[in-house]
Structures are given as structure tokens and as C-alpha cells.
């Protein structure tokens, strides 16, 4: 059996990739994908622990996260389309109407 630490390290690497992508990417779609990556990194650790301790709650949590992520994807992509229509760009640095 694969020890749980492997899953956790992979989960950490996924999460770190997500964070890094979130911080350095300028394209909204990429940022969005980085967020999904972070969520899935967390999901991986949930199911890893659930398998380790034979507890269902972790898996249930993963379903919740997936549902929220799906809803978020729907809303987020709608916003992205709307932004692109009005601003004709997906660069976050140029979407700065609220900045002073």
C-alpha cells in the first residue's frame, strides 16, 4: 500500500503549484485554473485521510468541494466572458477600474 505521506506530498506539491500559478499568472483563465488546482490538491489530502482512517466524512467533503468548484466555475467563467466582452482583455493588471 502506498503510504499516506506520498499522497500528502503530492497534495502539497499540487497546492503549491496552484498558489504559484495564482500569484504569477496574469491571465484570468490561468488564475482560475490555478484555483482549481489548489482545490484539487486539498481534495487529494481529504480522500487520502479518508482512506487512511476509513472515515467517510472526508469523501463527503470532497463531493461538497467539487460541487462548489463546479458552481464557481460556472459563475467565474460567466464573469470572465463578461469581462472579456467589455474590456477586450483577460490580463488582470488591466482590469483595474476600482483602483485609484
Amino acid at each position, binding site marked *: 500500500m502506498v503510504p499516506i505521506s506520498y499522497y500528502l506530498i503530492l497534495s502539497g506539491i499540487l497546492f503549491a503549484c496552484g498558489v504559484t500559478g*495564482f*500569484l*504569477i499568472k496574469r491571465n484570468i483563465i490561468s488564475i482560475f485554473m490555478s484555483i482549481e488546482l489548489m482545490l484539487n490538491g486539498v481534495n487529494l489530502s481529504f480522500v487520502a485521510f479518508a482512506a487512511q482512517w476509513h472515515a467517510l466524512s472526508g469523501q463527503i467533503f470532497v463531493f461538497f468541494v467539487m460541487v462548489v468548484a463546479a458552481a464557481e466555475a460556472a459563475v467565474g467563467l460567466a464573469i470572465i466572458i463578461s469581462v472579456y466582452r467589455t474590456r477586450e482583455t483577460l490580463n*488582470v493588471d488591466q482590469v483595474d477600474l476600482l*483602483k485609484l
Partner: protein
Amino acid sequence: MTPNLHLWLIPVLPLLGAAINGLVGKKFSRQAVVSVALLFSGAAFALVLSVAARFSTLSTPHLEFLATWIRAGSFQADFAFYLDQLSLIMLLVVTGVGFLIHIYSVGYMWEEAGFYRFFAYLNLFMFFMLTLVLSSNYLLMFVGWEGVGLASYLLIGFWFTKDSAASAGKKAFIVNRVGDFGFLIALFLLIKHFGSLNFETVFQGVSPMSPETGGAGLLTAIGLLLMVGAAGKSAQIPLYVWLPDAMEGPTPVSALIHAATMVTAGVYMVARSHVIFDRAPSALTVVAIIGTLTALFAATIGIAQTDIKKVLAYSTISQLGYMFMACGVAAYSAGVFHLMTHAFFKGLLFLAAGSVIHAVGGEQDMRRMGGLKEHIPWTFWTMTAATFAIAGFPPFAGFFSKDEILFRAAQVSLVYWGIGVFTAFLTSFYMFRLWFMTFFGTYRGTEPAGEGHGGHDAHGHDEHGHGGIHESPKVMLAPLVVLAVLSLVGGWVGSARFEKFLSPVFNAAVVTPAAEAAEHGSEMLFTGISVFAAALGLYLAWLFYYRRPELPQQIASGLGGLYEAVVHKYYVDELYANLFVKPLIAGSSLILWHGIDRDVIDATLDNSAHGANEVSDSFRHMQSGNLRSYAGWVAAGAAVVIAYMIWMGTR
């Protein structure tokens, strides 16, 4: 049976007038303001007259308790009024002369802006003065004492837009504060040793003490401190400097407050406290010396003044000196007698001087007057009466009172008497100098035009100008005539009868007819000498300022430095400025302002604010507005938290 006299109404009536005029008078017409002011001050006068009419049926002193004011432990101070012969005379003088001056002010102030304000202040002054005179304890007296100071301040600075008037008001207030300091400490001593400030309780406590021990210096200390207060209020050496400057106020104010009533409060207070002074002979000596010196000192300054009101101001100081001299030789009734006659003739002198100033369009310099006798005959004749009264010619009022003071002083020490007679000579000289310079000779000023005194702002206090030298309106002349009559007949009551009237207050030994007859011869001699001194003053003034007007200039240049010193009032103002004012300003500015306020208090606040500013400034850069940097901070924060947890977990 003690009938209810409603004494409390006497001060409260003018207070009502002050409240009405002061609060809503701005919307009134001038006629309405005048009717309110005259109604309430006149009503107070009428009430005093009715009290005076019933006075002989009263058992004196009459005490009227109104309400408890302060009760702390065994100490109690009440709103209570005290009527005896002394306060009755003061009441008559204050309300009578005060009412006349109210009438006069109607004409004098008619053209002024702030008409309602003037009458509100004037009524307020009456309220405080009557409180002072009527109070049955030192604390209520002190309220009146401070209140008249306040009214005086407000009225001196009536033309507050003028710098000199505003600072004269401040000077009067601050110099008075020095005196009040002494008065207050005297009150503290009284509370400490007698547990009360009621006149009756204190005097009962004082009575058993003998003059020799004087409560082991206690009464001397109280007496001296009371005298400090009196010297401040009544403009005696060394605190007289505010009174000449107080002439910046409107002339009716000078007449009412700075001649007839408020400045005599000190005399009243000393006379009221005679029980204490009687048992503190050394304090009494100090009173006499201060009075005598002030009388002489102010009279010499008065000789060289050219501003008509300044001459009268120094004359007032000098006459107040006479009153203190009288109190100092324990001749309180003579002092109060002079207080009364002085209120008549000095009030008249100021009012007549105001009428002169009014006539020549605001000019106050006597060198630019002259020959006014034909133009303003009413003013001339009333002023003549007052001048003869103050110079001490019989049968005018001033003669009787001054003669009595000098006679009583001579019985104590011939030094007092000698200086007093010399001062009487000086008084006669400078008053007739004023008289001759103003009314005789030829007119030396320019024809007063509409606003033709812009060239000498320093003297153009009273902004009157109607064109041409003209007599004042009847509303101003009527009080002059009444006061002129009083200046003439006011002394006829005679000092002996006056003293008898006041004897229940002062417990004076009634002089037996035989002793009186024995004194009569010497009294005649003293009287002759003082009348001669007055006549000599008249003659010299006539010689210098009528017959040979070039003489004073020659004498002045002959005297050189002495004359300069007198013209500059012996440089007392300069001395005080160097001795007290400048060190105070330097200390306040260098130590208190620069040293403490700026370098300690301000610096503490400033530096903590600067520190907060700099710390915040460094944090400000975290909030760049760049979203990803925020996210980076969040991630970094999370990393730190995780690292901490791990570190805690591995321990």
C-alpha cells in the same frame, strides 16, 4: 416689630433692567432701552428713598435674611442684607448719583452704537454695587466687589474696537486682581479664626481683643490685607495706576464708576471693618500713610496733566487718599462724609467735563480749549460750583468734609495735616488751572467739524461731533444742575450732625458741648489755614493760566527734570512695566511657552504623532492595490502559520 423692607429688591431691580436690556435690548428702539434703564434704576432709587423715609422707625442694624447660600460644616454664608446708617448713606449715594448719571448718559451716549449694551452694563454695575453695599457678610460683599470690577472692565472697554480702551480695561481688571488677592486672603484668615464671614459674628469675635495685642498680629494682618484689597479697588498707592487709564471709557462711566461709587468701595469696606481696624493700630497707621501719600502724590501729577479727564482722574485718586487718611486716623464718619460730598462734586465734575468734551466735538486736551464760558454757560456755572466745592471754599460741600478730615488728622499728627493742607492747595491749583484753561481766555482749538478730530486720535475718545461749539441737551444739563445744587448744599448738614447720625455704626464717643467749645478755637485756626491754601491755589492758577499764561512754560523749563518726571507721572507705569510686566512676559514666553509648552507638551504629542506616521508609512507599502501581492501576503502568512504549527508540533 421689624417691617419687611424688601431690601433684596434694591439690587435686583437694576439686575432686571440689565437682563432685559442685555438680552433683548438689541431689538429695542433707543427710547425703549432708555425707558427700561431709567425705570429700573429709578425704581431702585425710589425704593431706597422709601427705606430712608422709614429709617428712623427701624431698629438698626436691620437684617434681612433671604436664603442660605453656602453651608459647609460649621461655616455658613447667606444671601442676607444688612442695613444700618452707613449702608443707607451708601445706598442713597449709589442710587441717587447713579440715577442722575443714567439720565445724563441718555443724552451723552445717544449717538453711540451699542446703546443698549451701555445701559445694560450700567444697570449691571448698579446691581453689583448695591449688592456690595447691602451685603451682610464679607463673601456676598466680595461678590459685589468682583462684580463692580467686571462692570468696570466692560465699561472701560466699551469702545472695545479701540486698542487703548481694550487694554485699559484689561489693566484695570488685572491691577484690581492684585488687590483682590489680598482681600481674599483676609477672608480666609477670617474664616480660619472666626469661622464665619458674617459682619456681626466676626465683629463679635473681634471685639474682646485688645488693641495692644490685636490677636497677636492677626488683626493687623487682616487689616493690612483688607487694605491691599481696598487699595486696588480705590486706586491707592501702589495700585492706583489703572484709574487714569480707565478714563478711556465713556465719560458717564468715569463719573459713576471711577469717581462717585465704585472707587469708594474700598473706603466703605475699611469703614465697615472699622471694628478690626480699631484694634489694629499699626494697620490703621498704614492706611493713614497710604492715604496721605496718595493724596499728595496724585495731586502733584494732576498739576501737569493736559487731558481734562486725566486731571479729574488724578484728582479722584487724591481725594480718595483723603478718605483713607480720614479712615486711618479713625475718623470714619469724616471719611464717609467726604465720600458723599465727593460723589456729588466729582460726579458733577466728570459730567460737566463730558459736557465740555461734547461741546467741542470730542476734544479732551485742555490746551485746545479755552474761552468756553460764553458758549456753554450752564456747563460753566455747574462746573464752577463743583470746582469751588473740590477746592474747599465755604460754603460748598467739599469744604465741610475736607475741613473735618484735616482737623481730625491734625489731632493725630500734624504731619498728616500739613501734607493734607498742601494737597488741598495743590487741589485748588490744578482744579482752577483746569477751570481757567477750559472756560477763560480765547478758544485755542479748531472749530469742531462733523468728524474733524482725525488728526489727534489719541484724544478723540468720545466720538461726538455736530459742528460748532454748542451747549449740551437738557437731558444732560438737568443732572448737572441737580448735582451742582448738591455740591453747594451737600455739606450743610455739617460733619457733627453727620457723625452723630453714623455714631451707632462707629460707636464714636459723642463729643460733649464743653469739649466742642474748647476745640472750637483751634478748629477755626485750622479752617482758616485750609481756606487760605485753597485761595492761594486759586490765586496762583489765576496768575499762571489767566493773567500771565507764559509763566507756566518758564517755570516748567526752570524746574527741568522734576517737571519732566511729573508730566510722565513719575514714570510709575514704566517702572511697573519693567518690574512686573516685562519679566512676566519674558518668563511666560521663554520658560512657559518655549520651554514647557512647545518643547515638552507639544513635542510629546508631535513626536508620538510623527512616530505613528512613520510606522504607518512603512506598513502602507503592503497595501499596494495589487491583488496578487495581497494574495502573496496571504500565502506568506499561511506559510508562516504552518511553519509555526510544525515547529510547535515537533517540539
